[in-house]
């Protein structure tokens, strides 16, 4: 019998106007829950003179104050230890601890009840089913199972779908590749950086062509690479597999996914999340396709530590088209385009590291690794780009094309440094390739 196309056909094909009504009703429910169960949320809304009863229409939602990650430090200094007063359940109901990586400041502690953890894997089930994971799949998960949420919920969702899961926890990269080969694993989940790293190790250290292994689909998360066409192409070429994008976060949940139609964007799971886009300059909430802004997101069913109008700093834009897959969940064009923290003005021009990645990875002859450093020479901004040449490739054959493409795609000039293949740092989870030294 054919497997159905949608994880939940009732929700995933619901007309947009009904989805909005669902979001509105669920928003009121979670807002009321937070207001009546968390001192932090009650104080936040009381200060603004608002109660859940003041939310009478969808438009009223934007009156609710946003929550920023920076507020978590103060929240988590209060009782109950270690989560603080945004916690909405008795401490003994918390079944799982996770934390953010702390890249942008102090780590945020994330409590989840068992129901929240079920919810996490439910959200991931939408992701994996849409990407073609089915019970016949053997899914290899090469990440260090630890305090970071990463692919934990992907693991449980794959089990829920009926897949066979192989946890590739503390194995090193070569052992993981051998295990994929030994077991004929058909699917894998990893950051784009690690997908490329594994391919590199397989090819150049083990003499194994990853495209001849049995992996036929890869789910990427943690970085924007699978939404950057040239990076996606490199991964798909290396592994001979479909590569799908997904985005989620510890404090939010698994909120978006690319489907099998690969529409150059990701569906927002609008049954489980409310995504608003805030114009970076005006602060206005916009529904207009093609207008980039910061994502303000609400997890509509997360209970222990609610995520209500959270300022994620992810930069996204709505696509004007619906996807050919038939889902009515709207698409964000190109996936997550970058972080508001990383998109910075250089010489008066807005620079997104993702645009540089797109250029570097589109040029044959350059390795996968690169590094961007922005600093000042006197009073003038300077961008240094470090790239690697593949063996037997000459700088002369690459340099002008790289400069031209960078100028064309980013409207900026670069100081380019070429390095031998294998010289730049390698990463196993999320890469740190962008440094803005002017912020010191």
């Amino acid at each position, binding site marked *: 019998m054919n497997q159905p196309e949608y994880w*939940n*056909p009732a929700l995933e094909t619901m007309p947009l106007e009904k989805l909005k009504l*669902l979001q509105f009703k669920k928003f009121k429910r979670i807002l009321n829950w937070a207001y009546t169960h968390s001192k932090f949320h009650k104080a936040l809304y009381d200060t603004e003179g608002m109660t859940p009863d003041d939310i009478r229409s969808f438009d009223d939602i934007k009156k609710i104050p946003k929550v920023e990650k920076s507020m978590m430090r103060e929240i988590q200094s209060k009782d109950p230890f270690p989560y603080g007063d945004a916690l909405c359940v008795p401490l003994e109901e918390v079944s799982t601890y996770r934390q953010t990586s702390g890249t942008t400041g102090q780590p945020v502690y994330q409590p989840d009840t068992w129901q929240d953890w079920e919810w996490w894997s*439910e959200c991931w089930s939408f992701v994996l089913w849409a990407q073609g994971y089915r019970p016949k799949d053997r899914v290899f998960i090469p990440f260090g199972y630890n305090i970071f949420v990463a692919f934990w919920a992907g693991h449980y969702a794959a089990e829920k779908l009926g897949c066979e899961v192989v946890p590739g926890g503390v194995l090193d990269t070569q052992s993981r590749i051998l295990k994929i080969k030994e077991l004929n694993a058909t699917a894998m989940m990893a950051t784009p950086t690690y997908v490329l790293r594994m391919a590199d190790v397989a090819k150049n250290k083990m003499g194994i062509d990853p495209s001849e292994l049995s992996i036929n689909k890869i789910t990427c998360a943690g970085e924007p690479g699978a939404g950057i066409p040239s990076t996606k192409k490199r991964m798909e070429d290396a592994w001979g597999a479909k590569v799908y994008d997904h985005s989620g976060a510890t404090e939010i949940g698994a909120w978006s996914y690319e489907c099998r139609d690969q529409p150059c964007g990701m569906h927002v799971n609008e049954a489980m999340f409310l995504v608003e886009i805030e114009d970076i300059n005006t602060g206005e909430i916009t529904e207009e396709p093609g207008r980039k802004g910061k994502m303000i997101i609400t997890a509509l069913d997360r209970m222990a530590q609610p995520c209500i109008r959270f300022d994620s700093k992810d930069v996204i834009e709505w696509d004007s088209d619906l996807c050919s897959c038939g889902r009515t969940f709207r698409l964000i064009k190109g996936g997550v385009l970058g972080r508001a923290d990383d998109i910075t003005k250089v010489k008066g021009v807005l620079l997104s590291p993702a645009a540089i990645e797109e250029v570097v990875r589109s040029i044959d002859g350059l390795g996968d690794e690169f590094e961007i450093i922005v600093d000042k020479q006197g009073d003038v901004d300077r961008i240094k780009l470090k790239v690697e040449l593949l063996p037997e490739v000459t700088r002369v054959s690459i340099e002008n094309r790289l400069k031209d493409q960078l100028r064309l795609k980013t409207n900026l000039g670069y100081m380019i440094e070429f390095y031998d293949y294998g010289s730049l740092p390698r990463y196993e989870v999320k890469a740190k390739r962008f440094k803005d030294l002017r912020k010191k």
Partner: protein
Amino acid sequence: MKNFSSLNGVNDKILKIKQLLFELEKDAKQFPALDRNSKRALASIKMLELNISDIVEFDLADS
């Protein structure tokens, strides 16, 4: 919502299971195996509610 004309019927069944699990949980405070497994099952039932019951209870099912 093609092929899901009877979401109301599905929801009725979900609510019945939920009620039974609540009863099991309530009577099981001195019986941890029954108490904790009922609680855990209720968390799974909640996922059925998010997938189905919300649609019915918010009156969003196709008539």
